[in-house]
């Protein structure tokens, strides 16, 4: 099993998520994670989809099937070594008056996690990193009690000299958000 990161650029329209995911459903592929957001080009969305698969060939066919969706502008499939990737996670930790002291220094320096919110009897720590790093931190923080844990899907940039948006079709005058 290898992990593949599939980056899909699409027009931002209603129902598109369904049109993309049914391609996975039909091939009985389970999606590990999925992140969608608008790119720096207005009206263009970027999907980052992570799957695990044994055959590279099947992933290539999948990529070509996704490319067939009319609103899809471009699709790129990557192995982990071809991309820089990260996830973000948040941990809600209880902080009642009589609880163990939390070692903020280790959290900051070793785990590179940060305090982002301090409530009356809980705090929220935020950690970015790979899945592995996030779960390492999860193990570290677990003894303090975790009220809530949330992990985002992967986001990734290709290790290419250009940004992927540069590969998008040129036929339209793109309006830039920034």
């Amino acid at each position, binding site marked *: 099993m290898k992990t593949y990161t599939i980056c899909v650029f*699409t*027009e931002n329209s*209603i*129902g598109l998520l*369904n*049109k993309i995911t*049914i391609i996975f459903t*039909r091939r009985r592929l389970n999606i590990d994670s999925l992140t969608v957001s608008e790119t720096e080009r207005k009206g263009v969305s970027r999907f980052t989809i992570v799957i695990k698969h044994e055959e590279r*060939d099947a992933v*290539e*066919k999948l990529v*070509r*099937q996704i*490319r*067939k*969706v*009319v*609103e*899809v*502008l471009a699709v790129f499939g990557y192995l982990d070594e071809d991309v820089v990737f990260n996830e973000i996670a948040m941990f809600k930790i209880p902080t009642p008056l009589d609880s163990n002291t939390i070692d903020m220094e280790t959290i900051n320096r070793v785990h590179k996690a940060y305090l982002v919110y301090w409530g009356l009897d809980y705090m929220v720590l935020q950690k970015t990193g790979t899945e592995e790093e996030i779960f390492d931190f999860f193990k570290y923080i677990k003894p303090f009690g975790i009220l809530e844990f949330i992990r985002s899907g992967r986001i990734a940039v290709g290790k290419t000299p250009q940004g992927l948006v540069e590969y*998008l*079709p040129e*036929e*339209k005058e793109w309006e830039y958000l920034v």
Partner: protein
Amino acid sequence: MNEAVEIMEEKITKPESRILTGGQALMECFLRESVDTIFGYPGGAIMPIYDALYDYKDEIEHILVRHEQGASHAAEGYARSSGRVGVCMATSGPGATNLVTGIADAIIDCTPMVAITGQVASNLLGTDAFQETDVIGITAPVCKWNYQIVDADEIPAIMAKAFYIARAGKPGPVLIDITKDAQIALMSKPFEYKKVEGLPGYHPRTVPKMEQVEKAAELINNAKKPYILVGHGVLISEAMEEFRELVEKGDIPVGSTLLGLSALSIEHPNYMGWLGMHGMYAPNVMTDECDVLIAIGMRFDDRVTGDANLFAKQAKIVHFEIDPAEIDKIKKAEAPVVGDAREALKLLNPLIEKKNRSAWKKEFRDLEAAEHEAVTDRDLARQGKIKMAEVVRMVSDKTNGEACVVVDVGQHQMVTARYYDFKKPHSYIASGGLGTMGFALPAAFGAKMGAPEREVVAFIGDGCFQMTIQELGTIAQKGLPVKIIILNNNFLGMVRQWQQMFFDKRYSFVELQNPDFITIGKGFGIDGHKCEEREELEASIDKLLNSKESYLLEVVVEREENVFPMVPAGRSVSEIRLK
């Protein structure tokens, strides 16, 4: 008449100053796309469109079908015989879901279609309103593209996109769902229509890369035993002339897929027959003998390849295909050529060396003898009960192989492919990929609408006929002559054959108690008669073909006839059985 033409021209050339409703805008879009025929069925959520259509009846002919499935199959038949985009229309909810089978059929057989469905008003979307169904969700997996319009202003741009997508590249069905309020509302600006010729996300390559063509030419020229498999793509891109040139220049034998039938006349000396599960012997087994396999506009369906891993494994494959997703999907291509078949062949032909490959072609002909002895001669022996094969062959002879033949799905479909001698292109209209029983009757009617000058003959099994039997009403109401032949064996024949061969003759629910088809036909206003004896067959077929109106001929055939040759499902073509 002249006045009508003038009015139409005025409509097309003058910018519309009047503000149109959504429904009227849709009609104007149809005119801009030269739509002259719509197959449809009205209902609550599409009534404003039908109201607009009332004012356009002189320009657009609407055919009222008897069931929406009939509308989508008729649109397919129309598209397949005419090469134009078939248009069908239905209301929301059950109307839309009834279209789905035809849409699924169209995508797998690459048939250009635009389906319009009405939808509940936009403020009711998602409320389980009367006749509301998520048609976009339902049809997404079977549409090339679909879209829901909730604003009348969107109509011109979306329809232009819809027609472009339906016919561009590999053709397919597009569904546009229009909410009732968008049909009623006035547009906020004058109607303007701009045809689409490419989209940021969809701009299929038509002219292939020259280096791909050169590599293909090199492989073909150096081949000792090249073999062409011609598919539907050659017919879709109207590349028959260019294709014939390639075949003759390289003197290459040709096998056809089921939907590639009629791309090359059966009389051509290089035509060896068609291949696949029930295809002919030589074209099937020679896939194991060729050194270069040239696939043009075909996609290595499992009914063609059997076990794909074993199929033509000794051969280098040259694959001409417009859809990049098809390249290497089933068989790895040594030389893929991505582009339109016609454009590709235009580039390829000058690079092909003139050859004489008669020795190689003879190898095909030598194999034919075995098939003749074991299958063909027996099928055409004219002994015992009437056989499907002799009916088809007689119709073929009497129509000089020039009719447009529409078939349903099952044994009769395979027998027709085997025994009709196709001499003109676009002459075998079948549900190939989806295998949709009930396809033929509405599709035959649609085919006649698309090519009224051609004789349209439909071969239909007794099981299939009862799936869309109500379309006899549509045929009778329009009055265009469609010649219908029911090959009645009182069984769901293909399933029965499989049960006989692979399930120990356990005939599980395949025998039919049939109605009196002729009385039913007459009830709909279509004359016909039943033929049970061989002596009456010729006169019966003459009566059918000579009829100026639609005619229904029921031929009672051998009940437990089997179709051979046969490659058992999932096996190698080398395991082909002749009996």
